[in-house]
């Protein structure tokens, strides 16, 4: 034993492994991110701090109206997406009907389209000279369009619900697909009505997906510009539209930078919330 110990003591220590320089590879992408993403944000923040821009902008009625309208439209659209998306996902997942797979694929297709296309389609459908108003006029003989909501906040909300609902449907369908059929069968055999099964078995599993989808939609609707711009609604001024107006139309760059900073902070907060919920969902 002593011999063995002695031999161990005299054995030279292993040479330290060479220091890795692999970490240097992180520098080029880091520099790129700093240049492309962080610099413009810092530049916007820097621009916003010139003069008394913050006080002027935050104290203005236009900004407060735009902030309120942005949040109101985003929240209403998100609520609409959650309700419609949940309903569609439940029908697609648990009420099998011929063509349900096709409907699922169509929903996927909407995700690939630009948002303004929905507004354009809405114009053809519900605009003053759109197909629906033409049909109503043909039936009622009325010369003025009966359906006149497209250029109001309701029009923007309808378009946003139509475009963003798939962002709720898709994660819900993914979660529903993971719920074993056996759980639903057993719940039913224990005397639970379909509504009880939905409330007590299905939805508790779906809350994280619903929250993640809702957070994402809230984030996207908060920043939505294309739909509002294409609607051309004069009274619907949201933060992105206000940034565009101040920055591009009136060349008030410091004012636009202040609003943009507020928008960025709002977005980052929501994105943080989305990541927390998404992490919780994927960790299950």
């Amino acid at each position, binding site marked *: 034993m002593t011999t063995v110990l002695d031999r161990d003591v005299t054995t030279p220590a292993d040479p330290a492994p060479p220091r890795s320089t692999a970490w240097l590879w992180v520098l080029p992408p880091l520099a790129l991110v700093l240049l492309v993403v962080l610099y413009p944000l810092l530049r916007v923040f820097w621009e916003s701090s010139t003069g008394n821009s913050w006080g002027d902008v935050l104290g203005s009625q236009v900004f407060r109206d735009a902030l309120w309208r942005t949040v109101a439209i985003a929240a209403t659209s998100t609520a609409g997406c959650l309700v419609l998306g949940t309903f569609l996902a439940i029908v697609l997942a648990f009420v099998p009907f011929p063509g349900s797979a096709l409907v699922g694929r169509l929903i996927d297709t909407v995700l690939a389209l630009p948002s303004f296309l929905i507004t354009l389609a809405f114009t053809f459908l519900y605009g003053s000279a759109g197909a629906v108003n033409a049909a109503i006029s043909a039936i009622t003989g009325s010369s003025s369009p009966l359906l006149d909501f497209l250029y109001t906040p309701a029009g923007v909300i309808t378009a946003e619900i139509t475009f963003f609902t798939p962002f709720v449907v898709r994660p819900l369908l993914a979660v529903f697909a993971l719920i074993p059929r056996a759980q639903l069968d*057993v719940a*039913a*055999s*224990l*005397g639970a009505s379909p509504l009880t099964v939905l409330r*007590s078995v299905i939805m508790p599993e779906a809350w994280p997906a619903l929250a993640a989808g809702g957070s994402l939609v809230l984030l996207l609707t908060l920043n939505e510009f294309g739909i509002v711009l294409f609607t051309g609604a004069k009274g619907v001024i949201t933060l992105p539209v206000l940034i565009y107006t101040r920055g591009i139309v009136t060349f008030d760059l410091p004012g636009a930078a202040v609003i943009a900073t507020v928008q960025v902070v709002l977005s980052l907060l929501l994105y943080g919330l989305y990541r927390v919920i998404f992490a919780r969902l994927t960790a299950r």
Partner: protein
Amino acid sequence: MADTRVSQAGLRQRSAPAEPGSPAILFDRVGVSYGRGRKQTHALIDFNLRVAAGETVALLGPSGSGKSTALNALAGFVRPTSGRVRLAGHDVTDLPPARRGIGVVLQSYALFPHMTVADNVAFGLRAQRTPRHEIAPRVAEVLDMVGMSGYMKRLPRELSGGQQQRVAIARALAIRPAVLLLDEPLAALDAALRQSMLAELQLLKEALPDTAMLYVTHDQAEALALADRIVVMNDARLMDVDTAENLWKRPPTSFTAAFLGGANLLPCTVGRVIGSSALVTVGPRTVNAEAPAPALGHDDWGPGSAALLCVRPHALQIVSAREKDAFSATVNAAVWRGAVTRLVLSVQSLPDVLVDVDVPGHTPFEVGSVVGLRLPEPAGVLVSTGSTP
């Protein structure tokens, strides 16, 4: 009193009480098909079965034999395309699962992952609007019955497979079902746990003397251990139904003989038949065999008719190849299985048959060696020729 209440909860839309003398479960020519036209698949064909209250019947068969489909039709998870399903004399064919009052335990446990053990067990009671003050005592009672009293606050993911299955059983029992369906409840457990749970299910069966149980399994050991009667199924049809002992000792068909216990089926020719005994010729030898009443649809044992001699592997004897009354056989394989060594033999005088023999203990046999194979006295049981698995 409580049982009556639950029966009413289960079939609460029924206006008439249970018909006296009617079986707890009745399948009346039940068929289940999927698809249409040429794509139609028959999952269950013309299935008839009566299960009395307090009786345990095992549905035994290979995968795809229709046993789970029969269970699903009874639970209301699939709708029969023909026939009727009755519970305690009442036609439940058109009732949804929620109104049948059946307890169901599945292989996958199907516990609700976001609910604690107590909430899982209370689920059925709450769904059936049981008064709140009755729920907690009932939950405690059934959890105690399955030995899970100390786990009420746990979530399913914090339990082992065996514990989850116990909770699933407690959940099914909480609603005091008159009928309990168990679909391969032990299939997901390891061998040791399966044996332990099998013993617990035997105790549970004794504790529920009025509950009719339908137990789906592909494991003959589970069926033999638990069932009062065994239904052997194959190709979506009921092949045989009888007590476990009868099916084991006198299998009516070659399928049942082979599936239940893996019997050897040696081709033979029936000679003289006296009562329930027959002289049969197996290869070059004439031996005594038991000749039970032939299975339904098969001819009686006529002299000169072809039949199969059912001999269990443990009943055969390995002797010296020089013994005069033994068949000469060659060892094709020898596999030690713990308590026995399973030999696979090819018998010279029976060229188309491989014979399985169980020799007690760990006995080394050289592959290719020649041994003598002796039939017992009587040699076995006659079985009608027919399909084998």
